[in-house]
């Protein structure tokens, strides 16, 4: 049997050797209009076009039929750089093997919403990407009709070739691309019937996969421009502290060091945006020739810090949330029926509290950015999930007009929400402006982990009332968080319980927080789905049947008007996972837990099997059912689901960031525990619901429910409920 040898032809990043021997990365995609330097990235049998015809912001077609598709959105590992171009290619009706993918830079005129966040790239991109491909296909057909002198309606297309059946003539897209580029663009064009899709729904490999396995320069940290200096910043050691004074005399004399400066990225009178979250706007920057020299020099900075605001402690955080939840003075977010009356009449009442600590994002590639600010121009290259917001910030901070600021997004070594907050890019720009040189700002792991922008800490108390028949008659949720509540008042089981109330509480903090993969859902799903398991047990019902009964109620006789879920699709994934996991046929020695959640417009249900080995849990397998509508790229969609599951198990089980006197207690991976190889499930089995509904995202939805599938399985295994994350730190579980 012959073995396929994988070679690359998919994606390129223009790389050329600089005269000085340094490595230069050029990202200006518009510069490669005629002769792109892509020979090294193409298969020998995929000839390089002599001329590219720019069709629109998404498409360039070579005279030989090779197509370049721009991927508009930032790539953080969610694989939109493959999926989004697949959608364009589908409607263009081109052979995917003849497609090259390029990452687009920030261009707010050409593209909409160039953001990686909220699992929304595919959902929002879907109509525009289809239209971009279909419009160009339409123009190519029009041009071919003229060339062949036949009506366009007699032409069909397939794999980049236009056919005229009656005369048995064909034209390649490349033959008519130049003529098509000059035609008037129609307002509306017909889209394909999804049943005719030939690329969407097929598994296509990551367009950067071949470069990744060869260690090609793809990431922000890999940028080395000529004459570039390296900068690192020193921020206060604790939240609540600021710089009092500094002595940089020793540092300045150290080898390779060119500058030590102070910066403040929040100029007076500036009005920050949501993406400008930053606990430490005032910083000291050390600039030098090489990373190691700057790292060494930074250690020798003598800084005197002063206390500015309260230095917080984790123990006080826990007490503050617990006290608030008991105060009864929350902000009521929703109230259906009368919970107090219903609890008074209840046959059984169950009440439990769940909590989780702050978490760091810990993208494997630490924060970094390249900036070259010269006179009235700024060029920035690096990992950013929100380039368009960064552009606005830079305009204000640098005092430059938007049109003089260019931002190129590199592939990111993880995002998870951390790179929604682009302060590090602003810092890089400001340092470059001050030292008048191109610089790459590099955060060490310690700088990255102690800087802030964490997942908030949470605590929630659930109370449920059951009648004598085990029906859920009352449900009361009190949620607290630092700095805000994790509860979504209109999510399940809202709408399924006659008497339902949500109260929110918040604890103020000077620790900066932000969106962390599936914000709020990442905690509340685990708490809610663990609690429902406890309630189902108290009701004497099977946990899946108990949940399905509630969906029936929400579907047939919903309570309230605003219920943020489709009960039928929600129940659908639970039924599918029940069938696929063979629920009810537990193997000996294995304990199972179930969980389901809806967030970011997609539905996920999971069954997790755990085995106790030497008093330590080992996750054997996870069966997962997903409803995200049409699946663009099934292989990579499964990868996302698997990743969310491993990530969710890891953080629920092992990870925490704690504070003492404002100082993070974990600074690197020796003390901050992340899940490792042996702790991952042996097998993950993913099933998608096939319903033809427009697609929704997958970057986040598989993470939130898995913590509860784990805790529910652990309860079966050990008899102990795990309500406080990370579970490994709770007694009687070695982890």
């Amino acid at each position: 049997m012959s073995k396929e040898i994988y070679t690359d032809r998919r994606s390129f990043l223009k790389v050329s050797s600089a005269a000085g021997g340094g490595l230069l990365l050029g990202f200006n995609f518009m510069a490669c209009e005629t002769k792109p330097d892509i020979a090294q990235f193409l298969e020998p049998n995929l000839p390089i076009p002599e001329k590219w015809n720019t069709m629109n912001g998404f498409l360039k077609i070579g005279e030989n039929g090779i197509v370049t598709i721009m991927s508009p959105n930032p790539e953080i590992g969610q694989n939109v750089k493959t999926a989004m171009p697949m959608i364009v290619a589908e409607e263009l009706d081109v052979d995917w093997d003849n497609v090259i993918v390029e990452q687009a830079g920030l261009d707010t005129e050409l593209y909409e919403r160039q953001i990686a966040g909220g699992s929304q790239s595919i959902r929002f991109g879907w109509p525009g990407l289809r239209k971009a491909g279909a419009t160009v296909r339409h123009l190519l057909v029009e041009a071919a009709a003229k060339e062949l002198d036949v009506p366009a309606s007699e032409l069909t297309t397939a794999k980049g070739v236009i056919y005229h059946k009656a005369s048995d003539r064909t034209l390649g897209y490349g033959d008519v691309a130049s003529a098509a580029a000059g035609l008037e663009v129609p307002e509306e064009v017909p889209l394909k019937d999804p049943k005719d899709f030939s690329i969407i729904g097929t598994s296509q490999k990551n367009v950067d996969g071949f470069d990744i396995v060869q260690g090609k320069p793809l990431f922000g940290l890999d940028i080395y421009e000529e004459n570039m200096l390296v900068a690192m910043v020193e921020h206060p050691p604790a939240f609540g502290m600021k710089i009092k004074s500094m002595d940089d005399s020793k540092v300045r004399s150290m080898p390779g060091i060119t500058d030590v400066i102070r910066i403040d990225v929040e100029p007076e009178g500036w009005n920050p945006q949501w993406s400008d979250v930053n606990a430490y706007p005032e910083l000291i920057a050390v600039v030098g020739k090489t990373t190691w020299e700057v790292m060494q020099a930074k250690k020798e900075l003598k800084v005197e810090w002063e206390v500015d605001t309260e230095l917080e402690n984790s123990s006080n955080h826990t007490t503050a949330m617990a006290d608030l939840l008991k105060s009864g003075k929350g902000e009521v977010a929703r109230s259906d029926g009368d919970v107090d009356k219903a609890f008074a009449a209840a046959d059984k009442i169950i009440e439990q509290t769940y909590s989780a600590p702050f978490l760091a994002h810990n993208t494997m590639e630490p924060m970094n950015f390249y900036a070259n600010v010269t006179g009235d121009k700024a060029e920035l290259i690096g990992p950013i999930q929100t380039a368009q917001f960064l552009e606005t910030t830079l305009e204000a901070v640098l005092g430059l007009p938007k049109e003089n600021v260019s931002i190129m997004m590199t592939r990111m070594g993880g995002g998870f929400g951390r790179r929604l907050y682009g302060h590090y890019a602003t810092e890089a720009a400001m340092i470059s402006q001050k030292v008048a040189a191109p610089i790459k700002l590099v955060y060490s792991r310690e700088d990255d982990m102690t800087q802030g922008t964490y997942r908030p800490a949470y605590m929630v108390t659930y109370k449920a009332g059951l009648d004598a028949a085990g029906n859920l008659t009352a449900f009361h949720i009190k949620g607290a968080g630092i700095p805000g509540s994790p509860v979504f008042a209109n999510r399940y089981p809202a709408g399924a319980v006659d008497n339902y109330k949500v109260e929110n509480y918040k604890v103020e903090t000077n620790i900066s927080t932000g969106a962390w993969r599936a914000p709020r859902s990442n905690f509340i799903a685990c708490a809610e789905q663990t609690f429902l398991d406890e309630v189902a047990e108290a009701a004497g019902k099977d946990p899946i049947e108990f949940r399905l009964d509630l969906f029936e109620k929400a579907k047939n006789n919903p309570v309230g008007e605003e219920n943020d879920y489709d009960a039928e699709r929600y129940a659908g994934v639970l039924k599918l996972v029940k069938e696929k996991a063979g629920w009810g046929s537990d193997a000996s020695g294995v304990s199972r837990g179930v969980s389901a959640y809806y967030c970011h417009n997609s539905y996920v249900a999971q069954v997790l099997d755990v085995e106790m080995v030497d008093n330590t849990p080992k996750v054997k397998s996870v069966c997962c059912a997903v409803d995200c509508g049409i699946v663009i790229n099934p292989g990579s969609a499964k990868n996302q689901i698997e990743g969310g599951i491993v990530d969710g198990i890891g953080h629920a089980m092992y990870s925490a960031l704690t504070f003492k006197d404002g100082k993070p207690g974990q600074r690197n991976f020796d003390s901050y525990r992340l899940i490792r190889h042996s702790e991952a499930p042996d097998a993950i089995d993913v099933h998608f619901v096939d319903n033809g509904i427009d697609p929704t995202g997958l970057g986040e939805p598989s993470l939130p429910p898995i913590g509860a599938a784990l805790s529910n399985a652990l309860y079966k295994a050990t008899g102990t409920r795990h309500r406080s994350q990370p579970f490994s730190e709770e007694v009687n579980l070695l982890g």
Partner: protein
Amino acid sequence: MANLTLNVNGEDREVNVDSSTPILWVLRDHLQLVGTKYGCGIAQCGACTIHLNGTAVRSCSVPVSAAEGKKITTIEGLSDDGSHPVQQAWIEHDVPQCGYCQAGQIMSASALLADNASPSDSQINEAMQGNICRCGTYTRIKAAIKTAAKNA
């Protein structure tokens, strides 16, 4: 500063650096071999894994002076064209998500397979435990290692 001769991916390279500089930063900053990644700087995450005389080491924590007279292999030198069985298996299983840790994972996996052509699950876990993947591609990595073992 010292003038050192390093054998990197089969070639002798001259560098002028402080001899305490970790191999990682010599590769990245001085030799423009950026496939070897910085992740933690304290040998806890494995992103910087290279082979030193065929053994997987964390290049962030080994001074360049320790590499003199030894053979350094980085991800760029594992094969000329991505044809190493481990690289091929990674493509077959479409392992990467963000991709940042994968060079280190591949270097650990290839060192394991050079030493043990058909490792058991627990041997794979043991050899790979030092490589963190924040995206959670562990199950695919394990499957890819088994494929590579079969195809090598």
